[in-house]
């Protein structure tokens, strides 16, 4: 399979595979098996082509043309139980809901090549942000008027140039072009006139944009410093990107109730299918990490990532025909951090890795919703790597991540007046193959 064809396959996979959010908000930090074996603490010690994501400045450390390709198998479990902090809280105490179990396969591909002794160039394709939720029994799901299914997909292509200033310092700069699409399903409900307050589904709403039509761009920069032989410090910055979706499709489909008079009233009030616009905010991420070769065969690294989630203050929905239903969903996320610690032990036949990270939640309690049930999370990872081939030019890395998501309460202040606690668990298993020439 040539490289161009491989890129096409990966792009298609990213399109077809809904991603779920694995880091706070809707970012995805799972972009390489070796990195994830160390809980993503890889900004300073990265030594494969996933450096395009973790720190492009480290490309100058790669020995030659390096191709890294892989993906993850992600399984998710999400559930909800209602609480009733007030008399009118909805949906009520211990009303239980579940999401469909998710199985996702986000891919990544990176190519890095030296350009002389001090320069290196690389390109990468990955999905740095994503979200995928789908609640079971959408026709009766108690939160269906807010969302029954939501999907955010991204496909980012990046190109970076790295320069080794000397043996200790390397810097990089580059650009990222990111495509995004969004999809949202929900139900419209109405109380039955003359009834006792009972509600029925009167319409389904489907909002969708196509991936290829909406994109935005941003820059990236990295730095790698080797203050001592056994120490490395890395910095990485990926600028925020806004993707303006101008030609999304909003489809309103009436659901007959069996009562012609009522249905006629609903039909009169139902907006026509039309175009809808929105702006998707993807935050900037700044990472700093320090790696220490503590003893022969061992590398330890600690990273901190800061994500500018405060850019996600609202999700505007601008309907092109029926302006009266325009809305701006207030999110008011706050900046968050992620701390990770990982280690790698290199043995003669293989390497093993382990790590832990804590990822702070980005959403305030008001914005913990059925669409984005954000919560802090604790990741525990194990990794394994081994070299193959006559000249050990092939490397296979594996990882497993057990992601324990904190149970998150809406604390009685839910923006959607949908009160309860959300629970989630994610398991990720991934493999990356690297070939060095």
């Amino acid at each position, binding site marked *: 399979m040539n490289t161009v064809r491989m890129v096409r396959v990966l792009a298609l996979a990213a399109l077809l595979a809904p991603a779920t959010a694995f880091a706070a908000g809707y970012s995805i930090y799972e972009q390489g098996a070796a990195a994830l074996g160390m809980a993503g603490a890889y900004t300073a010690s990265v030594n494969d082509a996933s450096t395009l994501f973790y720190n492009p400045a480290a490309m100058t450390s790669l020995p030659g043309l390096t191709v890294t390709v892989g993906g993850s198998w992600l399984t998710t479990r999400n559930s909800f139980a209602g609480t009733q902090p007030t008399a*009118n809280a909805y949906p009520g105490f*211990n009303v239980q809901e579940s999401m469909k179990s998710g199985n996702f396969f986000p891919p990544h591909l990176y190519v890095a090549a030296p350009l002389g002794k001090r320069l290196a160039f690389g390109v990468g394709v990955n999905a740095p942000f994503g979200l995928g939720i789908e609640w079971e029994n959408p026709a009766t799901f108690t939160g269906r008027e807010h969302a029954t299914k939501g999907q955010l997909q991204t496909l980012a292509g990046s190109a970076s140039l790295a320069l080794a200033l000397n043996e200790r310092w390397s810097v990089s700069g580059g650009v990222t072009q990111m495509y995004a699409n969004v999809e949202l399903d929900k139900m419209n409900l109405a*109380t039955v006139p003359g009834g006792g*307050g009972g509600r029925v589904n009167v319409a389904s709403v489907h909002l969708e944009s196509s991936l290829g039509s909406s994109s935005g761009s941003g820059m990236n920069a990295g730095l790698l410093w080797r203050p001592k032989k056994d120490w490395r410090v890395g910095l990485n910055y990926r600028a925020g990107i806004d993707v303006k979706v101008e030609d999304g499709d909003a489809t309103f489909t009436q659901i007959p109730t069996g009562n012609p008079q009522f249905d006629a009233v609903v039909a009169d009030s139902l907006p026509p299918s039309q175009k809808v616009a929105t702006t998707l905010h993807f935050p900037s991420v700044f990472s700093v990490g320090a790696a220490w070769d503590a003893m022969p065969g061992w590398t330890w690294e600690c990273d901190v990532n800061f994500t500018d989630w405060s850019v996600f203050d609202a999700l505007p929905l601008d309907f092109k025909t029926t302006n009266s239903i325009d809305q701006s969903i207030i999110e008011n996320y706050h900046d968050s951090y992620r701390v990770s610690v990982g280690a790698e032990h290199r043995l003669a036949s293989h390497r093993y890795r382990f790590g832990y990270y804590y990822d702070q939640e980005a959403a305030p309690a008001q914005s913990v919703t059925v669409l984005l049930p954000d919560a802090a999370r604790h990741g525990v990872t194990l990794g394994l790597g081994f070299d193959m081939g006559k000249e050990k030019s092939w490397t296979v890395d594996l990882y497993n991540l057990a992601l324990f998501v904190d149970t998150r309460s809406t604390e009685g202040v839910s923006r959607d007046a949908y009160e309860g606690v959300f629970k989630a668990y994610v398991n990720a*298993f991934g493999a990356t193959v690297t070939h060095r020439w």
Partner: protein
Amino acid sequence: MKNMRRFAIILAGAALIGGCQGPCSKIDLGAPKVETAAVDFSRYVAVGTSISAGYQSSGVVDRHQINSYPAIFARQIGKTVQLDGKGGFSEPTVNGRGLPPLQRLLSLSPVTIDTVGPAGVPTNTTFPTPYSNLAIPGAVLFDYGSPALYAFNPLTTLVLRGLGTVSDLTLSQQPTFVSFEFGANEVLGRATRGTSKVLIPQASVALFGSQLSTAITTLHTVNPNVRIALANVPDVTAIPFFTTVGSAGLFGFVHRKIAAPSVRAGQDTLEAAALTSADLVTLLGARQLGLGRGFSLANPLDSAVVLDEAERTVISANTDLMNAAIDQIAQASWIAKVDLNGTLANIRENGLNLGGTHYSDAFVRGGLFSLDGVHPTDLGHAVIANVMIDAVNQRFGTHIPYARMEDYATLTSSSARLAGGENGLRAGANIAGLENMVHMLSQGRQ
């Protein structure tokens, strides 16, 4: 290589089942926290009016009786409430279409509501003890201790079965907890008839305070450990029966008969005059408007279908007097006041937001009032039950869980029919069954 293989097996195992037994399980909060030790709820008796009886859409029927606010409260404190009226909280249930047959919505444009027979029959007449729910539709506080007016109200027989007065049957159960709700009919019966006149001296507001004090004191004397949830009196002129047609858009060119005071006592007459903005045309007036009544001085609306400003003032003043008496009595540490008046005012002002849906006091479409425009739907009863739970928890230090509102939101508030869409209600509305309700509210008081 051996180590690597072992490690790969561990990784694969983690990938497949990776600690997923606990974290993967669905969240389950278990049963709600219930703490009732501070109050003995073992013998709960409810007394009151049609509101406590679960009367709605102009009748009583088992499927709504089991969702009256006392029944919901009983459920929340762990009692069984059954459709056959038996169980831990017993009731005088009626089957079928109800007694009288409940109203049903036939059409939305124009609004057409009818009643259909045959009437349901009582299903729990042989229950061996007095019912836990002794509320009687149409009852005034005087009825609590006196049988003098029982003969005028067939629903009294349904509830009391000739075994004694409400007071007798309450005390005979040696209740440890009582919900006490009277006062609405003292003003509602008159208001629905478009008058403020006191129709019977026994139901006068002047007597209300002393009658209430006697009833409550007796309960406490017989059982000093009794705890009482005492409901106050809502402003009855704020319900859809009065506010739906109202006067907006009508005053000035619609006419009604109104009392013309005479200098000679007892010789007031009726004269036709233009409706004012302070008058309230009742739901009964909607039909007259539909028939062309009221649009000339020569053909005015009946006085009985209009609550005029003077009548409203008297009713409001009387409601205030009764609530002042209730406030005073509710100072006792063993009484929790249930603020029905404040609850209705809040719904009138703000409606009710539940999930993403806004409920209001609007007739037919609001979701909180039944088709008679006076009585709450099951969802309205859940609202009251939660207000009562709040009052009891705050007063007595209990922790009774709230009722889940969504459980009481039903597709029909009447006898059988799923209602359709809604259009404006004004002239042309045809609402049958209201006369029965108005008669029930003022039985024997003409």
